[in-house]
């Protein structure tokens, strides 16, 4: 067994009471403190502490408030505004022309072109991190998730970004309940894994589209915020941008940070978020899903998103890679729930802008799917 921390103290040095811990141990403690405010205070303790604080590898930055800045002077509600076309990527633009209702919703909850500026006591994350020249693992936490949902709704998203989005999974449900007693021994919903027809007519589909768009906008806005930090800190190996609600988590690992640096995406100056390319979106649905721990989720939905240019959708390696991401995305009862949703029938969420009728947004059975429910009748 090779010990990971090997710290020898010279016994002859003992022991000035003030300096009883060698630098390496103090630094180890600082890495475990991680919280940037606490570290800032440690830096004012003494000269020795000051020189050690800025050597930490692990930093945790808790944002205390988010300021919204309206960076758009065009009519923000006009979808034909030229700025809009720049800001919204292909993907969002298509939705825009097909589904006006969710689009309005998206604007009201997310502020459209508005940039969000997270702050820590009126200082930007980049300012706060300025002197931390050795940070490798950075975790930033926003005070709340950005996507507003109705009470009782469960919505979580996880996304992996390089230069732009690489993987995204959204998990949601319309209501979380304590499991009713009668359902302990029998499953109340016996179905073939297909989506019931009512899903298309009662607003169920529309709601899922809104969740998807809002989550993607939140993710790409967050990614945009990280740009200056990644540029300032070439030492970064892992970057997480989460929120205190546990709603969304954006992840960038070693490979993703490398891609970001080597192939930076040219972002429009007017844009306050990273453009999301046209993507494949797959939806899985269950009207009712048991969660471990005596809870049940109604209208359980899993949407997985991958850029369509990202290789073919059918190759096995790609699928395995995505599955690994999806299974690793959530924790606890949600992990099990996502797993059981993955076994259900796959539908392709088609966002087609060629026809401007709202019903163009359709959920279709994936033709080449290799699902276990492949004997189901075609839903599209």
């Amino acid at each position, binding site marked *: 067994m090779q010990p990971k921390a*090997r*710290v020898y103290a010279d*016994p002859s040095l*003992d022991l000035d009471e003030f300096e009883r*811990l060698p630098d390496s141990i103090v630094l180890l403690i600082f890495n*475990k403190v991680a919280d940037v*405010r606490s570290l800032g*205070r440690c830096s004012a303790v003494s000269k020795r502490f000051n020189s050690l604080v800025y050597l930490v590898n692990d930093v945790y930055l808790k944002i205390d408030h988010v300021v919204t800045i309206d960076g758009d002077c065009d009519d923000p509600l006009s979808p034909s505004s030229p700025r809009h076309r720049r800001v919204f990527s292909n993907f969002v633009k298509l939705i825009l022309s097909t589904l006006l209702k969710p689009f309005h919703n998206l604007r009201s909850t997310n502020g459209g072109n508005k940039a969000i500026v997270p702050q820590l006591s*009126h200082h930007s994350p980049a300012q706060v991190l300025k002197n931390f020249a050795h940070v490798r693992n950075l975790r930033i936490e926003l005070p709340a998730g950005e996507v507003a949902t109705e009470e009782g709704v469960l919505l979580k998203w996880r996304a992996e970004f390089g230069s732009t989005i690489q993987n995204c999974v959204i998990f949601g449900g319309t209501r979380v309940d304590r499991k009713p007693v009668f359902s302990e021994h029998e499953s109340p919903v016996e179905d073939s894994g297909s989506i019931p027809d009512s899903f298309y007519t009662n607003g169920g589909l529309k709601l899922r589209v809104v969740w998807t768009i809002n989550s993607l906008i939140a993710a790409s806005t967050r990614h945009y915020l990280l740009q200056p930090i990644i540029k300032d800190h070439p030492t970064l190996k892992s970057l997480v941008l989460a929120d205190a609600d546990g709603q969304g988590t954006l992840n960038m690992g070693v490979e993703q940070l490398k891609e970001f640096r080597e192939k930076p995406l040219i972002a429009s100056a007017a844009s306050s978020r990273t453009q999301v390319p046209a993507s494949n979106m797959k939806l899985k649905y269950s009207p009712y899903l048991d969660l471990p721990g005596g809870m049940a989720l109604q209208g359980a939905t899993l949407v997985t998103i991958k850029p369509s240019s990202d290789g073919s959708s059918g190759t096995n390696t790609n699928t395995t890679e995505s599955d690994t991401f999806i299974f690793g995305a959530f924790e606890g009862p949600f992990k099990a729930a996502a797993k059981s949703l993955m076994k259900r029938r796959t539908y392709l969420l088609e966002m087609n802008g060629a026809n401007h009728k709202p019903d163009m947004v359709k959920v279709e059975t994936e033709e080449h799917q290799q699902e276990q429910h492949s004997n189901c009748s075609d839903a599209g």
Partner: protein
Amino acid sequence: MSEGTKEPDGGEEKVVLKTHDGQEFTVDMATANQSGTLKNLLSEVGSSSNNPQVIPLPSSITSRVLGKVVEYCQRHAAGGGRRGGMQALEQFDEELVELDKDMLLDVTYAAAFLDVPRLLDLTSQAVADAIKNMSVEEVRHYFGVVSDFTEEEEKVIRSECPWAFE
């Protein structure tokens, strides 16, 4: 005051750890091997039950501190296979670091000196948790550090990270 001392039993290899204040702790090899420092040392010099190697320790590791480290090493040498399994072991770890400040810092130092990585992890995490959210003065008091900044210098230092004081 020799409750930490154990008589060698049987033909098993033993090693004696001797603190500066004269206490001797006789431990078996499995326990000693939890410490990277002792493991390296013993792989060179060897030890036996008849003639156990005596290893003197620096004065910063008092018998009270060494007692804690030995307790940890003995428990972990037995591992999760012991009655109670991993869960009991985790609880043991949790309770082990419930120490007063001075003892915690001393055990941290000892864990580093003796190279017991998991114990060092536990104690340094406990120290980190303790100093989180402390004021500058509280951190100084905790570590027994006296500021060597001039008033002017401290002002500059604080202005470098205003977000830590607002």
